[in-house]
């Protein structure tokens, strides 16, 4: 596990001194255990992000990059309204997805944490079972559900309720929001469940003994104490969905495209990597800003309630 097996034992040798230092210094041993992971992250995360930032200041010319510093991509980003418009639309859509997912998940997590007495694990497994199929197929399942000849339309037609298929079901932002809310459900339930499960039950009894009714107990004890889970769930859903391009391209149609589709096309068909890099940098900054605003907002909320 550690690298000290091939060490010379000659006293006074350099390696010997190194080894003694290694055994004596706790933090050195700690860092050496951490080093493979840190190295992987430096090469695979820090370096690529630096290269991304650098590339965003270059210019694409045919198949080559012009490697001189330029703000052209960022000017493009701000001057052509389409990029900022789609970025903000993506933020709005992911925000919607987050709200819908968390609101739907909370009562479910609450039910498992407080009402289920035995076999909580069975319920948790029951929640995750639908997520054992491929992500792509879960998204595709909604295309099957909502499509022109899909399950809902053809089902209702077979039952004689509809004479003509409904066209507005698929290929719009609402379809993207529903699909994502479904695809990320487990990511919202689990953190909320964990934070609800941690709540000391005697606090709830105390609140009721002191005369609060069930609703006020929930508002003043349960909800504030479960906020960490709600925050974690929101971030776990919001951040990945902003950049998603699978769902928009399968069920979103032209009106449902998101910033992920733009980035993907810059690195694919449009072949403009530097502009794609600049859009990515701007998206990342915007997402970070939104997350900070959100954390600041929830922090204030908690202070007010407490």
């Amino acid at each position, binding site marked *: 596990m550690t690298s000290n097996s091939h060490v010379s034992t000659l006293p006074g040798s350099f390696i010997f001194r190194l080894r003694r230092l290694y055994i004596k210094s706790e933090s050195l041993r700690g860092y050496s255990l*951490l080093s493979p*992971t840190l190295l992987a992250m430096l090469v695979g995360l820090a370096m690529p992000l630096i290269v991304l930032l650098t590339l965003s200041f270059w210019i694409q010319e045919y198949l080559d990059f012009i490697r001189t510093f330029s703000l052209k991509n960022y000017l493009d980003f701000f001057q052509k309204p389409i990029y900022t418009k789609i970025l903000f639309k993506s933020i709005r859509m992911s925000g919607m997805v987050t709200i819908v997912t968390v609101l739907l998940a909370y009562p479910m997590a609450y039910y498992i944490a407080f009402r289920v007495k035995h076999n909580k694990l069975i319920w948790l497994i029951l929640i995750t079972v639908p997520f054992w*199929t491929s992500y*792509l197929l879960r998204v595709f399942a909604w295309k099957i559900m909502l499509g022109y000849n899909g399950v809902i339309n*053809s089902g209702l037609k077979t039952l004689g309720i509809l004479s003509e298929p409904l066209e507005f079901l698929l290929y719009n932002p609402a379809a993207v929001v529903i699909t994502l809310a479904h695809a990320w459900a487990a990511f919202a339930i689990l953190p909320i469940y964990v934070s609800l499960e941690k709540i000391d039950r005697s606090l709830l009894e105390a609140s009721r003994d002191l005369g609060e009714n069930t609703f006020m107990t929930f508002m003043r004890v349960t909800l504030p104490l479960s906020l960490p889970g709600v925050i974690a769930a929101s971030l776990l859903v919001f*951040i990945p969905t902003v950049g998603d391009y699978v769902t928009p391209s399968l069920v979103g149609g032209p009106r449902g495209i998101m910033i992920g589709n733009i980035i993907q096309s810059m690195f694919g068909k449009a072949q403009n990597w530097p502009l794609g890099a600049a859009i990515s940098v701007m998206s990342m900054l915007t997402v970070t800003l939104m997350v900070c605003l959100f954390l600041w907002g929830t922090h204030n909320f908690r202070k007010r309630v407490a």
Partner: protein
Amino acid sequence: MKSNRPSWKPDGLLIYAAMYLTFIYLPVLFLPLFSFNSSTYITFPLKDFTLKWYDKMINSPDMHQALFNSIKVGMVVAILSTIFGLLAAKAVTRYRLKGRGPLVSFIMIPLVIPEIILAISLLILISQAEIPLSLWTVGFSHLLLCIPFSMLILISRMEGFDKSLEEAAMDLGENAWMTFWRVTFPIVLPGIVASLLLTFTISFDEFVLAFFLSSTDPTLPIYIWSSLRFPTKIPAILALGASIFVVSFFVVSFAEWLRRRGVKLEPTSGI
């Protein structure tokens, strides 16, 4: 009249839970349903029952190659990420390190940036370094994504057990390596199994990174993605989805059985 109240009363939350389960199950259950339907088109009314799509799935060498690639990448990624995660978790929980907080946050970054950004940054780096795209580049990117998960699982497992057990072994004369094998490893084992399973699943199902970083040798999600454009290929893909589902059901049940047999697990605080 309170005393006459029936023992069962309609529980709003229970009804909600049932509706919620319907919402998350219903769309997914249509996949296996249509995989047994003899029509190529996925629409009601259903036609005859058939197994021909499963037959088609079994006789598709492209699909097998993709499946094999995904299993290969997933296994390598699961093992490496669990080893890295184990070392890092030990470092973080057993040693006092300066700058522990920022270092851990840095390692966790892949969890909080959109995958597409990770994918294109790696793509830029790899193409600038003129490394050819292959399953190795896909595997490397999956490793970055999986290490944080391994580390989180193993940290919560390591924090859960008493450090004095390790110290006792050392005091009784075991060296660091034997202490690890005979004390730490057996206790952390459930965490290791959980980490292997979770990281394999993540890698096996991962699409975005593989989309940007694979070459002509596709992983299974890439194969599925390219097949979704051809209506004639879709029923066989549904059959594949249903099969993956059944296999993961057995794997998860097996893991659960293993867990119950093994060390009794105290409630852990995490994912």
